[in-house]
């Protein structure tokens, strides 16, 4: 039985937007309403995600502002903040509320601006992103967010022999996928040679191993299982897992195994009465190339230690046995923090409806989304399937 169903989806292009947050979010929300064929009057509640608007734009208490902008003032609105897992956490809570019968129809979405349009340059944005690492026990070392995933990836390379060239293959694949996605920040393909020649950011990561700072918004309309059949093309949410891991990194048992992702995936597969082997494709949180490799293993899509070879051999490519990030992922599609989680849900919805345009994968019936926050200490995993 589905926990809820997505009946409307919308997102802006991810990239650079010289637009106030409410206007940016409004585009995604109105597209989601139109896709579902509803008006704001039909919506019972709004679950909203924004991670850093207070720091980046001096803009807080965004929920009512956004609700007012899209004609939904009056209904309950709640904002979620969970670093990069912000809007998937909003999504999880909305699904739980709909499943419990609290609401029939909810809007879920997120918005964020991270490019220099906010007035913040790269060193300042790097500092703001690093605020998701531990203030007392990590930030004083000068750690950055590329640094966090570099620490995980270096250990993974040590344990499993993962190579920089394998990391580059992830970047090449995702840029190739992004070139088919009109909403992607980067539409340009790249090569392994270009990736390996790029300037270093945090060993082993070079520029092409890192996702961009992006602006954007995404939104979905979800309804209860019973209500879903009155809509066109509902896509079922069959399982959602959510887990946390120990912070800081030094206190995690095995940082590179991303235990929260394993726990969240096990919950999601169990709820959906399915297995990793049954997934036709995945959208995973590839904030860095190494993160995609860790995620592919944590979700059980490839064997332990095989994430690097799987990327290099094309197993995770569009025509591979387990396509990962057909959207281009965070790496090419872009990463407007608070919009990323629901954008993955938008991508799953479009693919499962057979509505993903040039990037549509053949015959996909079941997919999984993996959205992590901070040093992977928050992870939300969602399994969705086409309604028969």
């Amino acid at each position, binding site marked *: 039985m589905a926990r809820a169903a997505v009946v409307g989806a919308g997102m802006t292009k991810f990239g650079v937007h010289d637009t106030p947050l409410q206007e940016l979010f409004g585009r995604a929300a109105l597209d989601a309403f139109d896709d579902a064929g509803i008006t704001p009057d039909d919506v019972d509640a709004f679950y909203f995600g924004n991670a850093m608007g207070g720091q980046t734009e001096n803009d807080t208490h965004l929920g009512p502002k956004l609700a007012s902008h899209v004609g939904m003032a009056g209904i309950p609105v709640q904002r979620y903040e969970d670093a990069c897992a912000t809007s998937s956490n909003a999504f999880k809570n909305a699904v739980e509320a709909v499943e419990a019968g609290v609401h029939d129809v909810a809007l879920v979405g997120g918005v964020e601006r991270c490019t220099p349009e906010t007035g913040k340059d790269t060193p300042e944005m790097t500092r703001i992103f690093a605020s998701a690492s531990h203030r007392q026990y990590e930030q004083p070392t000068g750690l950055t967010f590329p640094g966090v995933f570099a620490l995980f990836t270096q250990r993974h390379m040590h344990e499993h022999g993962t190579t920089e060239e394998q990391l580059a293959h992830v970047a090449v694949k995702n840029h190739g996928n992004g070139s088919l996605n009109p909403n992607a920040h980067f539409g340009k393909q790249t090569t392994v040679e270009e990736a390996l020649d790029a300037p270093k950011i945090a*060993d082993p990561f070079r520029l092409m191993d890192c996702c961009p700072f992006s602006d954007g918004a995404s939104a979905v309309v979800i309804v209860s299982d019973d209500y879903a059949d009155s809509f066109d093309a509902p896509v079922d949410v069959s399982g959602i897992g959510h887990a946390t891991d120990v912070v800081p990194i030094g206190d995690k048992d095995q940082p590179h195994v991303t235990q929260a992702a394993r726990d969240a995936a096990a919950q999601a597969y169990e709820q959906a009465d399915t297995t990793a082997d049954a997934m036709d494709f995945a959208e995973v949180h590839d904030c860095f190339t190494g993160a995609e490799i860790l995620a592919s293993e944590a979700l059980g899509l490839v064997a332990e230690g095989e994430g690097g070879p799987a990327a290099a051999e094309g197993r995770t490519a569009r025509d591979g046995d387990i396509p990962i990030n057909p959207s281009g992922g965070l790496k090419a599609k872009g990463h407007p923090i608070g919009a990323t989680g629901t954008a993955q849900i938008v991508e799953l919805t479009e693919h499962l409806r057979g509505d993903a345009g040039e990037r549509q994968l053949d015959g996909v019936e079941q997919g999984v989304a993996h959205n992590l926050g901070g040093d992977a200490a928050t992870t939300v995993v969602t399994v969705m399937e086409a309604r028969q």
Partner: protein
Amino acid sequence: MSDRLTHAEWSDAVEDGDLLGQECPDCGKVQGTPKAACPDCGSRGLETVELPSEGTVYTETTIHVPPAPIEERGYQVVVVQLGDARVMGRLTDGEVDIGDSVSVSGFVEDHEGYVAPTFAAE
């Protein structure tokens, strides 16, 4: 009044060249940073322990694009295995790989006065 290790006590020790951690008497977990309860079993009976000053590099990275207001580039951040605990710090000079031996060499202080231990290659 709890006598569990606090951030202030941990920081004072770092400034003195000592690393303090916590050991859980119930499940045995040893961690390198203070908490109010054991993250594994929830026990509040955590005992403050002194960590060894020498250990091996568990993982590392070199930061080429620093966060504001740091201007230095190319510094190495390390997670060091010290006995049963791990601690994150900065390498003071040279370059180390996973598995290399390091020892506590002092501390760095950020723009707001928060400290982190530094390590040097053995």
